[in-house]
């Protein structure tokens, strides 16, 4: 249990450090960030992969796949 919370706090701490250390990026400097491959979301072509992973595994959520609705019991 202690290891789990230590891991979670490390995750939070490293995330905060990362956010604090970021620099200001102007719109005209975002040509790479605006590339469609840089989207911070799952691809549309991943939609059905996420569905079967949701059904074949116990974990779900946070990656754009649905976390409720529909049976998925086959």
């Amino acid at each position, binding site marked *: 249990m202690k290891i789990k919370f230590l891991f979670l706090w490390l995750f939070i701490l490293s995330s905060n450090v990362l956010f604090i250390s970021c620099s200001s990026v102007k719109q005209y400097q975002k040509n790479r960030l605006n590339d469609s491959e840089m989207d911070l979301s799952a*691809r549309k072509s991943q939609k059905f992969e996420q569905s079967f992973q949701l059904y074949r595994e116990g974990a779900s959520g946070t990656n754009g796949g649905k976390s409720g609705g529909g049976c998925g019991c086959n």
Partner: protein
Amino acid sequence: MRKIYLSVLGLYIGILSTHAQVSEAIKDSSGYQSRKIKLDEVNFVTAYYHQNGNNSAVTGGIGSENLTDFANTIDLQISKLTRNQHKNTFLFELGVDHYTSASSDKIDPSSISSASRSDTRVYPSLNWTRSNVQTGNSIGFTGSYSHEYDYQSVGAGFNLTRLSHNKNTQFDLKLQAYLDRWTVILPLELRPPVYGSGSDDDERPVDYRPRNSYSASFSISQVINTRLQVLITAEPSWQHGLLATKYQRVYFNADFAKGVGPNGNVYNERSENLPDNRYKLPVAVRVNYFLGDHYIIRTFYRYYIDNWGIQAHTAEIEIPVKLTSFISISPFYRYNNQKGTHYFAPYGQHNIDETYYTSDYDLSTLTSNFIGANFRIAPPKGVFGLRHLNTLEIRFGHYFQSTKLSSNIITLHLKFK
């Protein structure tokens, strides 16, 4: 669970307290914009999925898991600008899946090929989002419906997006509720004498039970520098109602007393039984980095925990290689490690004094691997010279679990603009 929620709260307070982004927003001075209704894009996604394994939950954790699924969705996005520089966007989606399943066919093993062998799911949804063109802030609502032979779902959602002045930080909130109704279909031998099969031509009564799901997704994305951006998401959710699949059998290591249960002739078997409440907490981070001029590194990690005892770590990496500015090939790998629920036991190993029991290997301790590649082409003059066919993507993946289940999926995505 409370400690975990406090941890997530700490994460957001930490993020929101950062002040690295203070520059002025760049204002668009381009002048006239059309206010006509505009068709932004149409997406068509189709996939073929096939799996096989030997741990079917319908037959108590043994038997064929052979299943094929042919899944399709089409979505259509239209928008209209208002006079005060707001944009109304409507996204309509229609999905149709058709599956055939060897295990569902075993609900009634006496039939050669029962109605439950295959099913079609139809699920339309409509989202309306109103956004401020200048700031990028938006608010929206979603309504959805899903219909299967034995299962109906009505959903409602709310989404909110807030951007910082320089558009380097974005906060998203999504609230969703699904109100589902399930026809309780039981394995043939466990049906009480007057209980129906659930099929249309059977007039005997069956039970109907609700299953409701509520979730809230909080995410914050941040541009770190000109090559790196990060997204952090937490999505607590709660499910309530019939969460067990009642046509899944569980076999015990001893016999129940004679005459106990729905059918006095069956002594060592029951329908799956699981708690009526499930609280889930997944927390994830997504990091994308543009390496040099031709490589992008897309990574995803998720930690998941719920009150059924399931804990999972999921990590994913995908490396798009830009062969040209509009053709890319992206090998990917996903690893999942899951500690199973304490309600799980394999075939014939549950004790008869247990309250909750399942032999569904999806909920067991397992590791899984998923490997494949994504091919994407998006030439400026359209794919195959077709001006409106903006993007074509083909994706293939092979999945294998430590439970010996394996599957393949191939997906085609066409985007029209």
